[in-house]
């Protein structure tokens, strides 16, 4: 049977086509997916509009008051409605630091995924479409890197960067080093998937048709093969975003991530960790919960996308 035996044959507007598509149907019939999408959207929006959404600006020293330090959440005996989730040792509002923190986490996660997608898809496309020695070199490189845990690769890159970058610039470039470290550690997954898909597409007749008229190989790769391998890459990238956020949190927790002046969720958890035994549990618990919810929601979205784009599981 064709891939669309019951499909609609009329051309419709883009909106109608989306509302009519199988993807939208599977989305609208999966409550968990809708919930994940809503949660993810809330995180994204509040991160994007943090200065307007957050009740306080935790990084403006003028608004901070050390007397507010260690205020418990609002529902506790000493809590105040001014600080819904309490404050930390410097009197910063936890809810606001979470909103600003997830902003950093998401920026790092997104940029890292973008970096590894560009790197991995580019190399995978070259390897899969051109084959030969390029294929051998790229894939052996990927194999070698896959034998080293991603977090180690990231730590290594971070270490090298620390040696190379002058001290006074460290805090400024820290976030870029982090993006580079996470991005480089994750490219082999994208390269492998892209190469596999490109190998399949390369032998399809539409590629031959372009070769017959002498279209340049780079153009064939970008205009013909690339759009047809992006499906699986998109799924991988969604799950990869969750992974990148976790890697970032891990690195920041270990103290090699973003500087405390610009804390991400991982940094917040690390800072809060110091106060766990002295009874100020809220400082570390709420950022952790936020991290778990964010990662879970993104992961569930990725799972759904994988199933929705894979006709065999439908």
């Amino acid at each position, binding site marked *: 049977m064709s891939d669309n035996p019951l499909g609609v044959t009329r051309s419709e507007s883009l909106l109608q086509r989306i509302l009519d598509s199988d993807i939208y149907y599977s989305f609208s019939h999966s409550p968990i997916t809708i919930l994940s999408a809503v949660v993810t959207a809330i995180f994204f929006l509040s991160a994007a509009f943090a200065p307007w959404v957050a009740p306080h600006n935790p990084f403006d020293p003028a608004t901070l008051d050390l007397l507010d330090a260690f205020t418990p959440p609002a529902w506790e005996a000493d809590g105040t409605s001014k600080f819904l989730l309490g404050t930390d040792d410097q009197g910063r509002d936890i809810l606001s630091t979470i909103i600003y923190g997830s902003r950093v986490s998401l920026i790092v996660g997104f940029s890292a995924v973008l970096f590894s997608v560009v790197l991995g898809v580019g190399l995978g496309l070259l390897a899969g479409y051109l084959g030969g020695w390029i294929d051998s070199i790229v894939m052996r490189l990927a194999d070698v890197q896959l034998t080293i845990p991603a977090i180690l690769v990231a730590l290594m890159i971070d270490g090298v960067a620390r040696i190379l970058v002058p001290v006074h610039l460290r805090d400024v470039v820290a976030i870029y080093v982090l993006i580079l470290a996470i991005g480089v550690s994750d490219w082999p997954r994208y390269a492998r998937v892209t190469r596999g898909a490109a190998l399949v597409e390369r032998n399809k007749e539409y590629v*031959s*048709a372009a070769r017959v*008229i002498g279209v340049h190989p780079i153009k064939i790769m970008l205009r013909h093969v690339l759009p047809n391998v992006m499906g699986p890459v998109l799924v991988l990238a969604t799950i990869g975003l969750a992974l990148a956020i976790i890697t970032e949190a891990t690195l920041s927790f270990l103290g090699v991530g973003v500087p405390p002046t610009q804390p991400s969720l991982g940094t917040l958890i690390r800072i809060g960790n110091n106060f766990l035994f002295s009874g100020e549990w809220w400082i570390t618990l709420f950022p952790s919960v936020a991290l778990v919810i964010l990662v879970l929601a993104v992961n569930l979205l990725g799972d759904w996308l994988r199933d929705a784009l894979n006709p065999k599981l439908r």
Partner: protein
Amino acid sequence: MARQRAPDPSATPMLEVRDLAKYFDVSKPWLARLIERSPRQILKAVDGLAFDINKGQTFSLVGESGCGKSTVAKLVVGLHAPSRGVIRFEGRDVADAQSRADSAALRRRWQMIFQDPYASLNPRWRVRDIIAEPIRVFGLVKSRREQEDMVAGLLRQVGLSPADGEKYPHEFSGGQRQRISIARALSSNPEFLVCDEPTSALDVSVQAQILNLMKDLQREFGLTYLFISHNLAVVYHLSDKIGVMYLGRLCEVAGAKDLFARPQHPYTRLLLETIPDLEMTGREREPVAGEVPNPINPPSGCAFHPRCPFANERCRSEVPMPTESAGHIVACHAAEEGRLPDATYTPPKQPVAS
């Protein structure tokens, strides 16, 4: 091994192929080879082919899977580089066209139609962009407007409507997709079309539509076809000249009517024997025993000898060379020595549809 035939006296053929060969290295990776001490394996997909195609005619290659007929198609349009031999397009060696401009000028004049209507169109492209790709690549029009008009004209030409250009390939049936493929092939105004089993994935009624369309287009534009097929009836219907291939070599080349009326090579006779009898004469056909051998390790001498009822010692050791008599070329020792019994294939008369 070059076997030159006298050029056709009437005119230079559109396409001349001489001693064409394509070998594929199908060995395991060198590390595996080193460890297992296995030798290199060479697949001789096409070996020493020679044929001419005259302008405005249809030349068909028939044979079973693995005989190399599709490889010939890919060699002719430049999807594979030949291992040996010459391909001349209107008397000019294709390998000489090295510069980009030269190569584009040549490529514009031939096009290819593929077998699988589901794989031959990029699923992410709109039909109008698919058809316009050759127009853009060869810079055949000056304006966007001109291109749109051309695409609309092509769509009408192949029996679709200009509005179909807005759609994506998945919105069409197999036959309609093959029409889109043909429109794309025609868009650079080619003179020569290579058709690799263009109807074998289609239902018979759709096949009839496509074959009719191909014939109409040939008449209208004076197109020359190289047609690859395993279906003898389709080949009979369409061709002026037919080449029968077996394991990378041509066994027999003859005019279509001549080949079916006086098949010489025992393999050709076997193939004709397999044509289903739609006349309902109730004749019991004697199926020929044996299967096509592995092309990586073909039999010695004439590759057909293990299945051939007329094979003798010479056939087992010596590769038969094509010999021509009255425009009928056969590569068979038995035919050359006159050992073959006369075989006249009498095709069943056409059934009468009430």
